[in-house]
């Protein structure tokens, strides 16, 4: 064994990894305002989470992985995209851990690093915000058409379409607010602030 040479590229610098994951966890703590150490792993969050059936890691596991600094696994997980923000977990948590807020923080970090395993959910969010930035309000028809077009599901909801139109549920034209500039500015300055090194 001793004579075997190990290829340098296979070496992992554990101390750097450790520092990286520590600073990641500190960042999440700072941005979300939630201390991951508050969680004592009772599992009440997972037990009541309506989306648990579809998640790759249970909400409790996300908390444990955060405590252990498992950055990559967390940021590649589907769980952070599937949280519907129903706030059941936070209402029940005996340690008042604001899990939905943690999920938001983690999702944002995943986006920054280019991970989005739930492509459709990401696409819908992007188009929704594009609509708000553009018109100041959501343009449902444009949103649905744009989503179907970009997600390649051209005929999705075609059964629903006529009924919705007949019942005049969906308007064909967007409504633009008068001071649209003010809303655009909120969007642009948020982005700027983020580039300048985030919020305090």
């Amino acid at each position, binding site marked *: 064994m001793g004579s075997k040479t190990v290829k340098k590229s296979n070496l992992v610098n554990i101390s750097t990894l450790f520092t990286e994951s520590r600073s990641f966890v500190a960042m999440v703590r700072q941005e979300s305002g939630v201390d991951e150490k508050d969680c004592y792993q009772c599992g009440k969050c997972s037990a009541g989470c309506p989306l648990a059936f*579809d998640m790759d890691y249970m909400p409790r596991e996300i908390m444990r992985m955060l405590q252990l600094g498992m950055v990559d696994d967390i940021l590649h997980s589907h769980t952070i995209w599937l949280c*519907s*923000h*129903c*706030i059941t977990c936070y209402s029940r948590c005996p340690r008042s851990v604001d899990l939905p807020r943690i999920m938001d923080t983690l999702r*944002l970090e995943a986006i920054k690093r280019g991970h989005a395993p739930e492509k459709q959910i990401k696409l819908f*969010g992007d188009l929704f915000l594009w609509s*708000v930035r553009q018109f100041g309000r959501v343009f449902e028809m444009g949103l649905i058409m744009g989503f179907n077009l970009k997600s390649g599901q051209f005929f999705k909801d075609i059964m629903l379409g006529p009924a919705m139109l007949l019942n005049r549920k969906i308007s064909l034209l967007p409504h633009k607010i008068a001071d649209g500039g003010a809303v655009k500015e909120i969007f642009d300055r948020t982005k700027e602030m983020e580039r300048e090194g985030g919020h*305090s």
Partner: protein
Amino acid sequence: MDIAYFPGCSLHAMAHEYDTSTRLVCQRLGINLYEVPDWNCCGATAAHSLDHHLSVGLSSRNLALVKDMNLKQMTTPCAGCFNRLKTASVELKQNDDLTAEIEKLAGISLTGAKEVEVAHTLQVIMEAVGMEGIKEQVIKPLNGMKLAAYSGCLITRPRAIAQFDDPEQPVALDHLLQALGAQPVHWSHKAECCGGGFAASDTDIVVDLGGQVLEAARQAGAEAIVAACPMCQTNLDTRQRAIEDERGIKYNLPIVYFTQLMGLAFSYSPRQMGLNRLLTSPTTLLRSRGLS
């Protein structure tokens, strides 16, 4: 009572009937709604999952507009908008650093916006008018209609922000329906998530979660589900066909807004309340109670 009114994007589109019925019912109850001029979208889930400051910023502009109207209170019938507006309002009150950052970001002063109080319309009606006040206006009682009061996720959660009713066992909506002469059923899913946030992006989730809600209501013997949020209503109404196909059960459960039922009991016609716009028709149910 004078109060600023924030309809939100859904009520100006898909949930038009929620908007109309809310306005008429509030008028009857002496709650004067003044729509916030030039309000903008609250950003919903999309904004706060991208950036918390963006979300608070979008809501703050609306709060500042209310202050310009010389009003101190704002209400919205949408549970999603309520969650965003109230979160922003509470955070501005509590966090001066955040307020300063948002002021810079939105380019406006938020001194006045900080004083604005936000409440869901159900809360305003229950607190300003109450059961007795509602009963006084009832002309055509709902005759023991069996209803599943569906509060959903966001009217009562999180507790520290919503400061209304109970996040696990909400009762306000049940009380309101009782005052109208209906019989709210005891059921398990009154505060469960319907998956509405994934209505377009992941229909499997919606069919699964929405299906559980419909099934729970059916098992409790409900004849209709009563919603207080446009996302819940749209979701459970438009996906009902797909859910029925998936489960092989015909639910045929109308999903109605609480304001539509209030209007009916106050003697408005089903058409005035936009009940003809629902995809699952409530006509048979209304006829059985002499309401149509």
